[in-house]
């Protein structure tokens, strides 16, 4: 059980709310933009804390499944780096539908942290 409470995500969310509720109404022009950028950064950091390691683990699981099927001899050490390398070296065919699906899933999970609204807008 954690003894340092409130936890990081709670602190971030509370600080962000403070920024928006009390500081934002007091500033204008370029400073307003700075406050909104800060609030956005805190929101992203908060989502990342909430997602924890699960997003990265999901991506890694997806990569391993793809390798098990397409490049089984390299499946043991497969990760995002080997995926990038094997795409560049054309060991994985660019028009492979499973590869496309994996890349889309990884990108969607990154967007869910950095900018979930972008997914809705498209």
């Amino acid at each position, binding site marked *: 059980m954690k003894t340092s409470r409130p936890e990081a995500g709670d602190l971030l969310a509370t600080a962000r709310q403070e920024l928006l509720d009390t500081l934002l109404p007091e500033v204008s022009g370029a400073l307003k933009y700075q406050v909104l950028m800060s609030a*956005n950064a805190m929101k992203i950091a908060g989502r990342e804390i909430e997602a924890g390691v699960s997003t990265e683990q999901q991506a890694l699981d997806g990569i391993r499944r793809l390798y098990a099927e397409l490049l089984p001899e390299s499946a043991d050490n497969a990760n995002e780096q080997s995926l990038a390398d094997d*795409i*560049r070296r054309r060991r994985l065919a660019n028009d492979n539908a499973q590869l496309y699906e994996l890349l889309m899933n990884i*990108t969607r999970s990154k967007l869910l942290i950095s900018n979930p609204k972008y997914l809705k807008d498209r």
Partner: protein
Amino acid sequence: MAQSGLASALADYIAIQTHASHVQVEDFNRLSGGAIQDNYALSLLLEGGDQPGRQHYVVRCDAPSGVSASLTRPQEFAVLKQAFGAGVTVPQPFWLCDDKRVIGQSFYVMSRAAGTASPQKLVGGELSEAQGSELARQFGRELGRLHQIRPPVSGLAFLAVPAGSAARTRIDLYRDYLAAIDEPHPVLEWALNWLEDNQPDSGPLTLCHCDFRTGNYMVDQGRLTAMLDWEFATWSDPAEDLGWLCSRSWRFGADDREVGGIGHKSDLFSGYEEATGETPDPNRVAYWEVMALVRWAMIALQQAGRHLSGEQSSLELALTGRMLPQMEYDLLQQISERSNAKGTGIPL
């Protein structure tokens, strides 16, 4: 140099250039939005000489840390003069000062264009439907005029003519860049493969602005008054400029107006045809829209890199790094759409 010292040094310099008998600084302030260079608005009251009366200038200086990929001020001045000479709507270039004793760095002076460059104002409702449509047409005419400038041009010898096609040159550059950074970007590798496999026929090279997008031009009462920020100009495929302008990244929320959030491709292309007699090939432009997403991703990586390395700690640069998945998502969607259109299916 302190702000007031800078203003009077520049005023004295301009008085000498115009042979004015007296000069008074009326207004001087730093303009926002230059990561690579410092821009100043300078209003002077000149007596006598070639430009008597109240004059409004912009002074563009090298910033201490230049980005290696961009032009120096003297080079940019040379490009601006060519564009001005070809009838492109740009600020009138007046004087280049490469003597660093004047203000401590190279600078040049140009006329100040009226209006706003703000994407929020331009895309967010300041323009009527008809104005947006006419503006997109004007973009086409301006780019068409610019693209009449073809190598070799004396005075632009510093611009390297690509050995292969413009697309090939870009792909090689971005691959090198990805290889040099210590983190994996599988979507960008995948997109670069697609760009390599789908290169358009190698066509003529023309002078290209290479950063003509909403935010980099001024508009006054619905009319374009100046194309700005020429530091990335180079010889390239003219469709690169059209693709960059139409990229999804520069529509500022107005996705249905594919030309910079302002107007439609049919307007852009017909303006282009008016100036050149040639209709742009939509497939070629779409290819360069994909390239534009990759390029913007590369720029975002570079900007994030400046923050991460400690060279320039900045929230804005840091957040730009987190925009990368947006470009990646658009790349996945657009390439899939292009492939489906050609029947070489990458299913969605």
